[in-house]
């Protein structure tokens, strides 16, 4: 068999029978070519879309839920409804200790403040944060560092600013790290500048100071604005949200069924919707691609059947000269596999070009819809393997057809 594949005559036969009718061969190959082109193009685009979502959420721990307090909607334990609820640091601590599956709980505060640097100024959101924030919402530092435990312990008056704020408060090329800015007329030392990111792509004009410093400067005491809860990957974030809220209700004497007391935004849930959509799209892509591919392969089988019919007499002659049925079948199957494979390879190459075109059109810059639209080598190999298998199977039909005719009848054929 191996010798057969390396035999010049084998390929001479394939070449002859394909070039005998070029138009037909080309039309046949178009089917498979189109199928694999679609498969590669669609899979690549789906991957690109997924990548762009991942980039959008990439700096965020997606298995997260934000919880903030509102006002009660039911009277409970002697309290009237409409009572304003306030989350505290100890609440956050209790949640962290008692809810199963929690990775981090990050308490946060925010306030708007007037910020001055030299002759430039502006109103910005000032966050009080723990170093932990960097873990759940990665800050890409351009210069300097993020807040550390030392800053927290010593209530240091340091600040980390976003790139956007740097652009508004500083002259071009001015050194920001180790300079001072005034927040509410108090001097803060800039220790770092981070890349503006953000979902939706808007400017993020925010700055972060140590949580303890925030407490001191704004006299916020134990109060926190909201908490960010991150679950371990193997735990269901929806359950964590439910458990955390229940504990918080218990701690704050709120009716267990009170729906309004705590607001929340479940990032994990939203993210699951998107990834679910992406999975669906990928499934659809495979489905459409494979279906087209199979249709193409059937076209090849069809054409080979016609070819075999036309060559009935020739096959009869060959058998009279001593070709065994196996040799005839082998030849036809090799033909089938050859055209599927060649068409498939063309499809893969042009699929690659399509992805390059897509990348040029939609894949450039920070706001790209498709990031790195590509298919893995594994997918390409799987596609090729499917092609070869289908080619062999479909080749068997005309092959058996060719040898089912008795040589004597084949010779009589005109």
């Amino acid at each position: 068999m191996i010798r057969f594949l390396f035999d010049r005559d084998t390929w001479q036969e394939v070449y002859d029978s394909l070039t005998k009718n070029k138009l037909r061969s080309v039309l046949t190959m178009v089917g498979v070519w189109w199928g694999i082109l679609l498969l590669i193009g669609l899979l690549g685009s789906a991957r690109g879309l997924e990548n762009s979502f991942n980039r959008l959420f990439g700096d965020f721990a997606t298995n997260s839920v934000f919880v903030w307090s509102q006002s009660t909607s039911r009277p409970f334990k002697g309290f009237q409804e409409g009572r304003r609820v306030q989350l505290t640091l100890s609440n956050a601590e209790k949640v962290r200790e008692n809810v199963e599956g929690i990775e981090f709980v990050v308490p946060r505060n925010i306030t708007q403040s007037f910020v001055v640097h030299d002759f430039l100024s502006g109103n910005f959101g000032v966050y009080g944060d723990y170093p932990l924030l960097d873990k759940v919402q990665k800050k890409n530092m351009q210069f300097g560092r993020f807040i550390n435990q030392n800053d927290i312990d010593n209530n240091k008056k340091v600040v980390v600013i976003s790139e956007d704020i740097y652009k508004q408060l500083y002259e071009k090329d001015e050194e920001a790290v180790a300079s001072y800015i005034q927040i509410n007329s108090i001097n803060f030392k800039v220790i770092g500048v981070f890349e503006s990111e953000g979902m939706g792509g808007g400017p993020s004009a925010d700055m972060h100071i140590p949580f303890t410093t925030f407490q001191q400067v704004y006299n916020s005491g134990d109060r926190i604005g909201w908490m960010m809860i991150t679950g371990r990957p193997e735990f269901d974030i929806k359950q964590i949200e439910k458990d955390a809220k229940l504990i918080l209700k218990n701690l704050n004497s709120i009716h267990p069924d009170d729906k309004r007391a705590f607001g929340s935004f479940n990032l994990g849930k939203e993210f699951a919707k998107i990834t679910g959509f992406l999975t669906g799209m990928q499934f659809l892509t495979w489905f459409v691609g494979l279906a087209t591919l199979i249709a193409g392969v059937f076209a090849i089988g069809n054409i080979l059947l016609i070819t075999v019919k036309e060559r009935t007499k020739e096959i009869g002659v060959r058998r009279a000269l001593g070709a065994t049925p196996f040799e005839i079948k082998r030849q036809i199957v090799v033909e089938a596999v050859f055209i599927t494979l060649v068409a498939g390879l063309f499809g893969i190459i042009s699929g690659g070009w399509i992805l390059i075109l897509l990348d040029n059109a939609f894949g450039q810059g920070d706001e790209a819809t498709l990031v790195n639209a590509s298919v893995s080598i594994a997918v390409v190999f799987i596609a090729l393997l499917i092609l070869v298998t289908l080619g062999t199977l479909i080749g068997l039909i005309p092959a058996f057809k060719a040898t089912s005719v008795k040589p004597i009848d084949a010779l009589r054929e005109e």
Partner: protein
Amino acid sequence: MLKINKLHKSYPIGDSSLHVLKGINLEVETGEMVAIMGSSGSGKSTLLNIIGMLDEADSGDYILDEVPIKNLTEKKAAIYRNKFLGFIFQSFNLINYKNALENVALPLYYQGLKRKERQEKGKFHLTKVGLLEWADHLPSELSGGQKQRVAIARALAADPKLLLADEPTGALDTTTSYEIMEFLQQLNDEGKTILIVTHEEDIAAMCKRVVRLRDGVIEEDKKVNQVRAGQHV
């Protein structure tokens, strides 16, 4: 060489069946040149097809070179055809997209010979039929006589024990027919056993023995004085 005993063959036609060969007994020795004659429907082609293992008899014995030919699988039949038999057809049956040399070398391909050997043997046989300089030509570029000579070279290529010719001159004009017959006689002189199916008396007269079939039985089987085709050309 070849021994046939009480050979029967019938073809089903609708509900009934057509009895084509009704007990044929035939013996052919090595080196004979036999013409099988008969009008159409006499069963002469069927007999040749059975001898050529392209068809199988319903009953009776067929022994070729001391090998009983019976219950053949397609594969075995193919191997026997390749080893024992060379076919010459009325319509030449050359493969039209292969040149003369490739056509001649085709049976050798199925014998599993290497390309180089095939080329050499193919050229040798093409030389024998006097068409070496036409080796690279496609069948469409050859005349009828040339095509039949290529076909003969192809039949000879595998060095068969028996040459089977089904109306070899049926598609040729008289002059070319005699050329082909002269060549076949030459092969017979060299010792090849040849069986020719024909309905032309002058062609039959150029063989050494004539077997006449009529309605599926042998009507007459006699040795004749061979007319040398060369005298006519």
